[in-house]
């Protein structure tokens, strides 16, 4: 991972060698915001700063955190904060870094948030496969407890909070907030229908619960330290602050970058030397995914669009989890489409009929096309099945399902088939990709034949 120079908020300690330790964290200004909050601010004042910052959630949906916190019904206790560290959206790579490299920043954000929410307990749910992040967080929590930054009477105040570190065991859907809650309750991670189960009102153990993404909370110490206004001054008026983007795929120097919201463009991320330095081998971009595998794809004409939530939403996609995947002109679009659909088919929780049956069906049809057994009617069939999962096939999706996972499987189909229909037709007719495009598993398939 390369880190560009320039002002950074949450990645500022990434190049401090001991930034992840308690000593390193405190030496670089850590826990000052927490001290400030519990000693000189009321919970309401803390909440007001987060509201003023207008920070949008970084987990995917981009809902303003301050507003969400306001949904907790007054006087209902116990209430919980749940931290979503399940990062599994293909292309997404940022929460893991925040947990591994600056665990105390997250812990500080959690404790401040609990203070604002009047919650006495938080559950930090980390993706199961992230062993190193779990270790770093466990160590940081033990140290933070030892130094009275978590636990009883924090920093000598009358505020107490506990953080329970726990982790999953491999299921993408558990990143969805209600599925995460089910998983935390020891259940199969199957989402709950919203309504009636809005977590802020009926969440963990049917008590009021706020679910926030790791990156969202990692920003909280800065917001409280500098004030919501300062934070809001960074980025675009409609998308405040800095945000982390992971740029992967066919670029020269893939990496994770913290950039101000809105001020830059996708083109800049791909082309500027301090970021990705252009498309590999001097090639050109054929398509890119702006916000994780669930998002509708963008094409060269979108390169100059600002990295700003409303702008990207309006263009029919989303910034989602800040995952940008670049595909150059050699990309096999049928294979790319299939791979993403296969992901959703494998990760469907199985609760909703359209998602459970539909995503698998889509995957089978695409695989058949890839294997050279496509039929001309398959292209219409792909759209018909998609229509049964996501009526209207657009983003944000209308859905016949509980959660957006099923409809997400439709995004790559809608994107790739609409734009590159000839590549699908070519596969159906000739059983191989069009000229100039490389099948990603030429050798792999040969060995299975």
């Amino acid at each position, binding site marked *: *991972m390369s880190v560009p120079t320039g002002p950074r908020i949450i990645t500022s300690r990434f190049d401090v060698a001991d930034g992840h330790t308690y000593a390193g964290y405190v030496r670089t200004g850590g826990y000052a915001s927490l001290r400030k909050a519990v000693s000189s601010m009321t919970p309401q004042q803390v909440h007001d700063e987060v509201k003023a910052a207008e920070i949008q959630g970084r987990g995917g949906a981009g809902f303003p955190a301050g507003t969400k916190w306001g949904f907790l019904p007054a006087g209902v*206790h116990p209430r919980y904060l749940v931290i979503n560290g399940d990062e*599994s*959206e*293909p*292309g*997404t*790579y940022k*929460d893991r870094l925040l947990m591994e490299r600056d665990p105390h920043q997250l812990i500080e954000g959690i404790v401040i948030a609990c203070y604002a929410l009047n*919650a*006495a307990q938080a559950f930090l749910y980390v*993706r*199961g*496969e*992230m*062993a*190193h992040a*779990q270790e*770093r967080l*466990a*160590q940081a*929590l*033990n140290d933070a*407890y030892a130094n009275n930054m*978590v636990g009883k009477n924090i920093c000598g105040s*009358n*505020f*107490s909070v506990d953080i*329970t570190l*726990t*982790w*999953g*065991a*491999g299921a*993408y859907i558990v990143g969805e907030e209600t599925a995460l809650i089910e*998983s*935390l*309750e*020891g*259940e199969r*991670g199957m989402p709950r229908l919203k309504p009636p189960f809005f977590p802020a009102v009926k969440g963990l153990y049917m*008590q009021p619960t706020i679910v926030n993404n790791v990156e969202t909370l990692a920003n909280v110490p800065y917001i409280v330290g500098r004030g919501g206004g300062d934070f809001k001054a960074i980025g675009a008026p409609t998308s405040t602050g800095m945000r982390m983007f*992971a740029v*992967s795929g*066919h670029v020269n120097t*893939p990496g*994770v970058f913290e950039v101000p919201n809105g001020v830059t463009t996708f083109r800049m991320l791909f082309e500027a030397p301090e970021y990705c330095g252009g498309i590999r081998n001097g090639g050109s971009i054929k398509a890119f995914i702006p916000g994780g595998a669930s998002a509708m794809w963008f094409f060269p004409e979108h390169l100059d669009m600002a990295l700003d939530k409303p702008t990207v939403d309006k263009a029919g996609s989303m910034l989602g989890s800040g995952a940008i*995947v670049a*595909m150059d002109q050699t990309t096999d679009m049928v*294979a*790319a489409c299939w*791979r*993403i659909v296969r*992901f959703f088919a*494998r990760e469907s*929780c199985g609760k909703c009929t359209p998602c459970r049956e539909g995503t698998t069906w889509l995957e089978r049809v695409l695989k058949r096309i890839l294997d050279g057994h496509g039929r001309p009617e398959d292209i219409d069939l792909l759209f018909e099945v998609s229509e049964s999962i996501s009526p209207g096939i657009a983003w944000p999706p209308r859905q016949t399902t509980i959660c957006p996972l099923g409809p997400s499987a439709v995004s790559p189909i809608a994107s790739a088939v609409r734009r590159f229909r000839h590549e699908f037709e070519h596969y159906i007719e000739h059983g191989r990709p069009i000229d100039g495009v490389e099948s*990603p*598993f030429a*050798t*792999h398939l040969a060995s299975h034949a």
Partner: protein
Amino acid sequence: MSRLTDERVATAREIIGRFPRKKSALIPLLHLAQEQDGYVAQDAMVHIAELLELAPAEVYGTASFYEMFKFHPVGKYCINICTNISCQLVGAWNLLHHAEERLGIKSGGTTDDGMFTIEDVECIAACTEAPALQVNYRYRYKVTPESFDALITELESGKLTDEVPPHGTLASVRQTTTQAWSNRGVQEQAQVDAR
């Protein structure tokens, strides 16, 4: 194979104590079982059911939802090769193919000596370092056929024992702070009232 050892039962009780409801400890306890045997044994699930006052079917129902839990022995080293989009774009399938040839097994299989299992997995959050893999959930970035072979040699020779514990062991550091969970709601309310 086996029920949890006494020592692990003690750890289990500590973990259970951190949650307001026992069942919440289910996934952590399944990890504990997997750490003990390298997979989640049937007897271990029965034992966990006892500890959490559940029916074994509930334990298995939850456990089988999650990909990391194995119900049969797997290799000492489980090598998960990501083939999702970012990795596919830069050669993940070739890497998987190479791995299969090198170890003489197909994805999902285990070598006869019980050393290695290979799996083709979904995105592991290392997309900018593609193609990426995990061996027992420890990362390897920008893996080439050569670096893959080197990894196998190192694992075989035992050079990586410290860095890569046997399959089942996740975090080598645990949270040790204990928390008592009675009347949290009342305490919270009191704190709110006091302010």
